[in-house]
């Protein structure tokens, strides 16, 4: 791993003015700290993707299949014919530059090829050369003319450049909000990565989680018994904190609903506290209202790293959700806090793996609310569900148990720009916390900044890239930290919970990261619980510790 520069060094190095030399004449320089490691051939092989092999992006020779150009070219054509988005986006960009400084990776790195428009041009230049009449005619006059119209041939250098920059886009869609035609560079990245996967050029942080998920049901490769052990362990912690023994159910046939959330929350802090939060909420609903929620070990992953590989891989992983719901005979599905998981559920799942006609239209039996917005997919977001419970006054809450926290909220890209889930989490937070502060308007809601590590980029070897990309978000957190003393950054995304702690530690070390349902559970008064002296993190609650008779 390369040496990570100090925050002030990294910041002062950023220069948004590109070098005088044109981008086509600037060869790609694949740097350690920015690039991710190549995929492990075993993972590629396990899911049956082409050309598994040991290779490294730092080597000269990427051991490409001999006819790689042909494969890419054919793949490109196929995708143009399958996706109108790509065709239109390839043709209509006017290079107005409105998207240029909207990308967190450009803001944090100053690398001009991280401007969304240029990221897209990396592919568009090849498109012009190979697939447009104008490109073919003008290009045939000579090399200079090719360059003037922005066309170029696909060669090894270009391919490497694609790879390097397509894995510096977190598919966050912020650029698409500002583009006058809605050109979504994420869509172009998705397609570009699909092409790269045709010749076995994935990164390991995507390929291995995807293979794990395929096999064991979750990214981390946790096998069913271990999954249950983890949850039992959380149940013990909850008992210690609240005096109440919660008993989550697994793979239970005939439960009311199936709950699916990212496995990250079962595995690593601070997501584990969010997981405990879910368990406590579900226990509460079971005790009070007899609402029966089951977890699945087979579909134990909400997240979908297949989405970062190809549309097909996304579909293969996502299929487990409906399959498991059908097998267990539940009424509908509840989905936990995760960003890209929800992009997939909201914009792809029903189309790919539906119709889910074996499920019922989702209704909360506790409040009677019909979730009309989810009546086809039959899947409800947990903050929609909880907001509805709170609105109908169905939860006993002691908000003072979050008084030690000054909370702000990070909209994750996918729920904000691929769904529009903005108010529900805010409503929940404001009802379980007394101190809530928004970050500046240009950094939240549909203009939210990525955590810097989305779309499979939260590896360890690319820490410099992650800190660059994390800068705009962290900077906005710093602003509310300095202005209001904010010390807790809440979010509804498991990648955020994995990625933001590192970025906070680097840029704003005084701020911690939490899921929204950890905050809910801190406030939630469980039936028969004892007096709580700590929060879910076992940190003493101010004002409560002195009664502690130990």
């Amino acid at each position: 791993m390369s040496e990570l520069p100090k925050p002030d060094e990294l910041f002062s190095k950023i220069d948004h003015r590109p070098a005088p030399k044109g981008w086509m004449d600037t060869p790609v320089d694949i740097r350690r700290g920015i690039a991710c490691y190549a995929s492990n051939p075993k993972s590629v092989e396990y899911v049956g993707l082409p050309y598994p092999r040991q290779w490294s992006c730092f080597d000269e020779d990427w051991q490409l299949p001999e006819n790689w150009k042909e494969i890419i070219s054919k793949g490109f054509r196929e995708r143009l014919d399958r996706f109108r988005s790509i065709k239109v986006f390839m043709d209509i960009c006017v290079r107005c530059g409105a998207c240029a400084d909207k990308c967190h990776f450009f803001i944090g790195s100053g690398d001009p090829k991280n401007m969304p428009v240029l990221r897209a041009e990396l592919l568009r230049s090849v498109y012009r050369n190979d697939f447009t009449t104008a490109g073919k005619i003008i290009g045939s006059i000579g090399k200079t003319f090719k360059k003037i119209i922005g066309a170029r041939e696909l060669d090894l250098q270009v391919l490497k450049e694609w790879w390097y920059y397509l894995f510096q886009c977190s598919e966050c869609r912020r650029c698409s909000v500002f583009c006058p035609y809605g050109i979504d560079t994420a869509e172009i990245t998705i397609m570009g990565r699909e092409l790269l996967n045709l010749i076995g050029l994935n990164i390991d942080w995507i390929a291995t989680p995807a293979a794990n998920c395929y096999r064991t049901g979750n990214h981390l490769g946790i096998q069913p018994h271990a999954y249950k052990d983890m949850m039992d362990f959380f149940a013990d912690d909850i008992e210690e904190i609240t005096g109440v023994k919660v008993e989550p159910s697994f793979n239970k046939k005939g439960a009311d609903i199936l709950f699916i959330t990212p496995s990250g929350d079962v595995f690593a802090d601070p997501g584990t506290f969010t997981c405990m939060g879910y368990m406590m909420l579900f226990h509460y609903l079971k005790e009070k209202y007899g609402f029966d929620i089951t977890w699945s070990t087979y579909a134990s992953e909400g997240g979908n790293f297949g989405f970062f590989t190809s549309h097909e891989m996304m579909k293969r992983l996502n299929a487990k959700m409906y399959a498991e719901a059908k097998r267990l005979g539940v009424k509908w599905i509840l989905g936990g806090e995760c960003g890209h998981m929800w992009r997939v559920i909201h914009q792809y799942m029903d189309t790919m793996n539906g119709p889910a006609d074996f499920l019922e239209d989702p209704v909360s039996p506790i409040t009677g609310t019909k979730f009309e917005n989810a009546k086809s997919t039959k899947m409800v977001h947990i903050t929609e569900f909880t907001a509805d419970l709170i609105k109908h006054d169905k939860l006993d809450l002691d908000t003072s148990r979050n008084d030690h926290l000054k909370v702000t909220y990070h909209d994750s890209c996918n729920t904000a720009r691929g769904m529009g889930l903005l108010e529900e989490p805010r409503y929940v937070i404001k009802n379980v916390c007394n101190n809530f502060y928004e970050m500046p308007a240009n950094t939240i809601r549909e203009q939210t900044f990525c955590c810097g590590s989305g779309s499979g980029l939260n590896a360890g070897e690319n820490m410099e890239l992650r800190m660059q990309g994390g800068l705009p978000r962290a900077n906005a957190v710093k602003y509310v930290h300095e202005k209001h003393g904010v010390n807790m950054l809440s979010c509804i995304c498991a990648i955020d919970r994995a990625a933001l702690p590192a970025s906070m530690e680097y840029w704003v070390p005084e701020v911690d990261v939490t899921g929204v349902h950890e905050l809910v559970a801190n406030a939630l008064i469980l039936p028969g619980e004892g007096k709580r002296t700590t929060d879910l993190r076992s940190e003493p609650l101010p004002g409560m510790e002195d009664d502690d008779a130990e």
Partner: protein
Amino acid sequence: MNISYMYSLIAVIVLFLLAYVGVNFPGGEVFFGIIIPYLALIIFILGFINRVIDWARSPVPFRIPTTCGQQKTLPWIKSANIDNPTTTGGVVVRMILEVVFLRSLFRNTKCELKEGDKISYEWEKWLWLFSLTFHWAFFTVLFRHLRLFTEPVPACVELLAKLDGFLQIGMPGLMLSGVALLAAVTFLFLRRILIPQVKYISLGSDYFPLFLIFGIAFTGILMRYFTKVDIVGVKEFTMSLVTLNPHVIKGIGGVFYVHLFFVSVLLAYFPFSKLMHLGGIFMSPTRNLANNSRAKRHVNPWNYPVKIHTYDAYEDEFREKMVEVGLPVEKMIAPETPEEPEEKE
């Protein structure tokens, strides 16, 4: 020197000379006045239709609107029905706002790193303002030209011309749109060469239409206010084109043919260039779809079955471990050997 804009500039100058000089050759007036304009119009129409059909031929497999506001969920949460539409009506309004007011561009911000470690994102209105001016002025100029192609001239065209010339300066009256167009094109060009990031991304095909449109506006203004073209003659000529009974009128002047030639080039160039954003914006899936994919199933015409890891295969692999920790299974393990190990756990 930047080859992208030098070559584009040279191209436009060459086009200028071609028409200006060429028209004096025998048959030049017929060529530049009749053949080229008809040809250009045909290329424009067929090319445009072809491009749109080509886009339309690719399906929209997924419903992927970029949502720029609150979704419609619980009845007590106010949803953003335009920035995050769930109905066709909402989508239409969203699209109208995009096309008529450049709604998304209006959001534009400028990111700056401040001393210390601050980052600011300030509202950047100039691109939006000049872009809006440019497009509206272009549209106004185009629309006013209808007076040359209609007889009698529709009242709305006359009215627009009146509004456009409301300043009543000079003789013939100054038209605001022409000046605005020239000013806006100049701004758009200057920003392309002065803002380092925009310069970096600009191609020849970005400069070329700007120079060309500048040329069109410039020769137009030249004719109207300075060389005082014979407008009656021009009208007779343009009407002859419209009525498909084309004949040239003597003595209209070289500048007119340059103007006409530039317009022809723009028309013929249009379908093969980024100018197709005129059609493309209406077909952009992130803007023209309603965000209702969870309420209403969107169908992908090429959805194909894929290989998945079934529950049965999963249970087969992990059955023993599942049984061991008490997870329910579909098929119990066949009791082939006496089950002692259970006790030991």
